């Protein structure tokens, strides 16, 4: 293992890849600390999409002409990029979706309704995004598949003993759990989760929306069964996401949406399905966004996860240390293993008021319940403000956040 330090990341060069970072907001330089909601886009992604539109655009998978063939190649190359990114055994295990939400809904529909049986259960955690709660409510109400929730500790970590107890009766057929909390920054112990779940006969889906931005993901080393992520948080465009699943699972699952591109043959009476992954990809897909995602993946790989992870770890430690000294500020979530997402509350100041004041200083953060209302209730709060970091985040931006929060405190004090 090489000894990577944050210094190996050439931040000035990275920032020069992002045209938007030179913008000003309310006359102040933009300090963008809302990348966990959606990351900014590097020039490589913008150029890939514009270039496709300007030089080689046509519909894919069906044209017998040059433009369609070139576009199909560019779009399908992203399947190879995604397979390499996740270390998937087979490119046919990469299913394109609109986002993580659609990926989880696909599993809830095709695996939940097609493979799981009434009387079985799905197990999630108490720190899920609504996208990994609501599809299971719908499955429960539709098919009588129980929904169980594994608790978290006060530090914001998965209670692994309680998690295992939820599996002991052998009814859980699927564990669907975040790999990194979008509110607390907590990484869940993925290898341990897979080990325990498999020992009790359950498959495992990770919602990797946040984790894949900050850490190298190797689905074969994790040993999981499904992995979902979205392109727009990984410096790619909106409208494109990925579901990875083991090939034998995709083969056993019925289709999700019906339409063109997902069939083998159609008569007046019936249809037969294409092989995976196309069985799950009905209709003209997000072609340009798929091409953009490939550029984003290659951009991340060129920087390297070791350098990104070391940089963000240093930023997170800096943020925890700076924010901890602000009077009246409480950091929400104190997990040992955590990434570059820091939620906090401030006595006497509501998260929305904090966000509005920060915005006036050019600092963008998220405020609210972060699509995780059950987690907010578990924590006994209504909302938090959240700063989140990316490869382009500067330590001086965290200083700007901390300095401005000190003034916010005085403002409401």
């Amino acid at each position, binding site marked *: 293992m090489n000894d990577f330090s944050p210094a190996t990341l050439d931040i000035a060069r990275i920032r020069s890849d992002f045209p938007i970072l030179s913008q000003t907001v309310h006359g102040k330089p933009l300090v963008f600390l809302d990348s966990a909601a959606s990351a900014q886009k590097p020039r490589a992604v913008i150029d890939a999409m514009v270039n496709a539109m300007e030089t080689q655009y046509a519909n894919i998978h069906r044209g017998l002409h040059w433009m369609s063939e070139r576009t199909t190649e560019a779009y399908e190359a992203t399947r190879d990029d995604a397979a390499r990114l996740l270390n998937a055994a087979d490119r046919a295990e990469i299913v394109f979706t609109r986002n993580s939400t659609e990926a989880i809904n696909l599993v809830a529909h095709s695996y939940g309704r097609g493979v799981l049986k009434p009387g079985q259960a799905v197990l999630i955690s108490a720190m899920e995004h609504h996208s990994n709660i609501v599809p299971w409510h719908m499955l429960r109400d539709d098919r009588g598949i129980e929904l169980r929730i594994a608790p978290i500790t006060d530090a914001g970590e998965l209670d692994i003993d309680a998690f295992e107890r939820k599996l002991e009766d052998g009814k859980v057929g699927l564990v669907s759990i975040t790999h990194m909390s979008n509110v607390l920054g907590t990484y869940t112990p993925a290898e341990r989760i897979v080990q325990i779940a498999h020992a009790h006969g359950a498959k495992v889906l990770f919602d990797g929306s946040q984790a894949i931005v900050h850490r190298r993901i190797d689905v074969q080393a994790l040993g999981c069964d499904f992995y979902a992520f979205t392109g727009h948080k990984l410096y790619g465009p909106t409208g494109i996401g990925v579901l990875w699943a083991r090939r034998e699972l995709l083969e056993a699952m019925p289709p999700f949406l019906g339409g063109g591109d997902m069939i083998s043959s159609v008569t007046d009476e019936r249809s037969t399905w294409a092989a995976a992954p196309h069985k799950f990809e009905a209709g003209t897909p997000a072609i340009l966004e798929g091409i953009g995602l490939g550029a984003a993946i290659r951009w991340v790989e060129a920087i390297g996860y070791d350098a990104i992870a070391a940089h963000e770890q240093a930023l997170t430690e800096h943020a925890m240390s700076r924010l901890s000294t602000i009077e009246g500020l409480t950091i929400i979530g104190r997990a040992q293993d955590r990434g570059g997402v820091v939620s906090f509350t401030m006595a006497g100041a509501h*998260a*929305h008021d904090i966000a509005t004041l920060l915005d006036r200083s050019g600092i963008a953060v998220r405020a609210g319940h972060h699509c995780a209302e059950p987690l907010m209730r578990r924590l006994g709060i209504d909302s938090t403000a959240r700063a989140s970091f990316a490869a382009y985040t500067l330590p001086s931006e965290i200083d700007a956040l901390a300095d401005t929060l000190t*003034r916010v405190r005085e403002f*409401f004090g």
Partner: protein
Amino acid sequence: MSLDDLRDLYQEVILQHGRHPSHAGKPATYAATAKGDNPMCGDRVQVFLSYDPAGRIVDPRFDARGCAISIASADLMAEAVAGLAPDEARRVFVRFRDMARTGECADPDETMELLRPLAGVHQYPSRVKCATLPWHALMAALEGEGQATSE
């Protein structure tokens, strides 16, 4: 200092009413109530109404969890509609909503002057709902609907 720019939104009267509202708290008895929820941000307010024999609003109260803007708006609203007949309160709501959206008040009077510190929200489109949420709850309570959501 840049935060001073925000004094147009967070005027002292708003900070005061946001911090120390004088009409907060669920009353022991009331004639009508309604809740307002903003599902996008999680803010919640419940309005409690009582009427005098002539049908005028007496001592309106609220119970809210939300930002300084929504609490201050609820408190100023309670002051503005106390003593008004339901139809008069509805007319104040329409004028207040217009002022929150545009920053302008076409027909200022004592009541609108009371509410004017909230006119600054029009510059913050994502915060207009914070100011109007308690009013939607008030309208629902006047109609006996029980539940309101912000637009």
